[in-house]
């Protein structure tokens, strides 16, 4: 027998093994989003968990099995369920919270699986009890205990610009003006901090270093590291976006809630602004307000001080979007924000 013929079986085995390797890693990876209809609930409320299953090319995957497990504070499981994704990749599950549901952080874990794909897992957090401007503003801001509120300002000094996380630039002093309104509403002495202060901020991520406090941030994510962090991590219910023609506000699940052409916002006579309140993962209650431009952010401060605070009981949701049009509602076209020029809410939610 020739030497080559003895090696043929070995070569054949080698070829089989080598051929087997690429076959085994060819399973496409599913991707899964998980959201809840609100970021906080009361006992007795109905919780809606929803999201979308897609493949590596972001194409919807229908018929995928979505497994759900919801855990309560302390880790005990309160609900399990499964459902199949619709042809557009979407899925939705609902369940009720017991009236005696304990306060704290709840986690909804989900796994998407389908034959021929690698499964994927994701999770989201919600909080009990429900947080609203109505039930928070007085104790969380106006009469909050001394040094229990941290007012975060976006740093304006170019020499410290590199201390901000990627995607966040130095602010202008106009970005500070709106903070004066909630600051003035505080009864007691509170904490001031720059978003570049390493004592109060994790400079790598922009995450606040405080816990169990009230956090106030009145600027957009392009200049404010704290706001940028909360939007990037999908902790805030709303997020900012833009393209070549418009500014936008989106819910964190990507649903568009408001928009304004860039040129209109740039006139500084019309804007859209948000006021949102939510819990973060460190026990902080976070109030964020800003508009597409500094003028809209200023309008958020004016509206918070002059309309929301005196009528706090009427603001029974966690987030609101309003519109300001200079000269509308009988106001003067003078560049100042008059309350009659603010309309809305354009959208609201929890």
């Amino acid at each position, binding site marked *: 027998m020739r*030497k080559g013929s*003895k*090696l043929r079986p*070995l*070569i054949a*085995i*080698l070829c089989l*093994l*080598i051929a*087997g*390797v690429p*076959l*085994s*890693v*060819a*399973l496409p990876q599913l991707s899964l989003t998980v959201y809840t209809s609100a970021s906080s609930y009361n006992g007795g409320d*109905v919780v809606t968990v929803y999201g979308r299953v897609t493949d590596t090319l972001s194409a919807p995957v229908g018929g995928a*099995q979505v*497994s*759900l*497990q919801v*855990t309560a504070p302390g880790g*005990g*499981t*309160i*609900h*399990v*369920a*499964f459902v199949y994704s619709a042809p557009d990749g979407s899925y939705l599950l*609902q*369940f*009720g*919270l*017991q*009236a*005696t549901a304990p306060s704290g952080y709840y*986690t909804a*874990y*989900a*796994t998407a*699986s389908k*034959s*021929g794909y*690698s*499964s994927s*897992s994701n*999770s989201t957090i919600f909080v009990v009890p429900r947080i609203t401007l109505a039930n928070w503003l007085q104790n969380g801001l106006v009469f909050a205990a001394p040094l229990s509120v941290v007012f975060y300002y976006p740093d304006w000094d170019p020499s410290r610009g590199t201390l901000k996380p990627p995607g966040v630039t130095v602010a202008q002093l106009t970005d500070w003006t709106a903070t004066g309104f909630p600051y003035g509403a505080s009864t007691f002495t509170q904490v001031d901090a720059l978003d570049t202060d390493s004592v109060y901020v994790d400079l790598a991520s922009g995450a606040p270093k405080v816990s169990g406090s009230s956090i106030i941030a009145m600027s957009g994510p392009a200049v404010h590291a704290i706001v940028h962090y909360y939007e990037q991590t999908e902790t805030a219910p709303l997020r900012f976006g833009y393209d070549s023609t418009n500014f936008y506000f989106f819910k964190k699940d990507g649903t568009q809630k408001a928009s304004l052409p860039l040129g209109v916002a740039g006139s500084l006579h019309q804007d859209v602004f948000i006021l949102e309140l939510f819990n973060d993962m460190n026990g902080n209650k976070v109030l964020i307000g800003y508009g597409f431009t500094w003028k809209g952010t200023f309008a958020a401060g004016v509206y918070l001080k002059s309309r929301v605070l005196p009528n706090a009981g009427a603001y029974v949701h966690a987030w609101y979007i309003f519109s300001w049009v200079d000269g509308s509602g009988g106001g003067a076209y003078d560049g100042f924000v008059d309350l009659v020029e603010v309309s809305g809410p354009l959208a609201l939610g929890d």
Partner: protein
Amino acid sequence: MFRVSSEHAGATKYISKLSRPELCRHSRLGSLPAPRRIFMISLALMLIALLAEMSCPLMALAARPSGAEEDLTIVEVYASDSTGKSRASYRVGENLLIWVAVRNDGADLDLLPRGPVVWIELDYVSDAVPFPVGVQFSIQRLPGGGTVIRWGAGFYLNPTNLQLGDYEAHVYISDAMISDGGKFYNASMTSVFTVTGA
């Protein structure tokens, strides 16, 4: 009845058990070869061993759909009182037992310590949306070959927070906790009963 592929246990064991003895037999075949041949054969065997080692976990993943499958059937789900009597209605303040029987007609399903997990959830269903009032789970091996496993979970019908009306017990089986990246097999059977006043 539902079918479950044996995604973890079977395929991995098959490859790891058979690949090495096969290699050993090859190395003992035939008369003593010349040094050059020994070198070439050794080199080839080293390559095979290396590739086999690299491809084992990957091949196990790829073998899921076509490998051995296990048949899991939730044979029975029912409620009973603490004496084992099954009734259509129970009173608040009672201790309720939900029983589940699972038959595995396939290979052993042994994913310990992560799974498989048998779940029982008790839901209040007189409203449009189910209100879960309790979830219990058990991580246990499910022997194959038609073996039936029975498990019972206790629920206290707490008068302080339980609503009167219709309840369902749902059973699921997963390969691990969902919070640990696990997923449910498509298994659920419902037992319906009513909870009445004391």
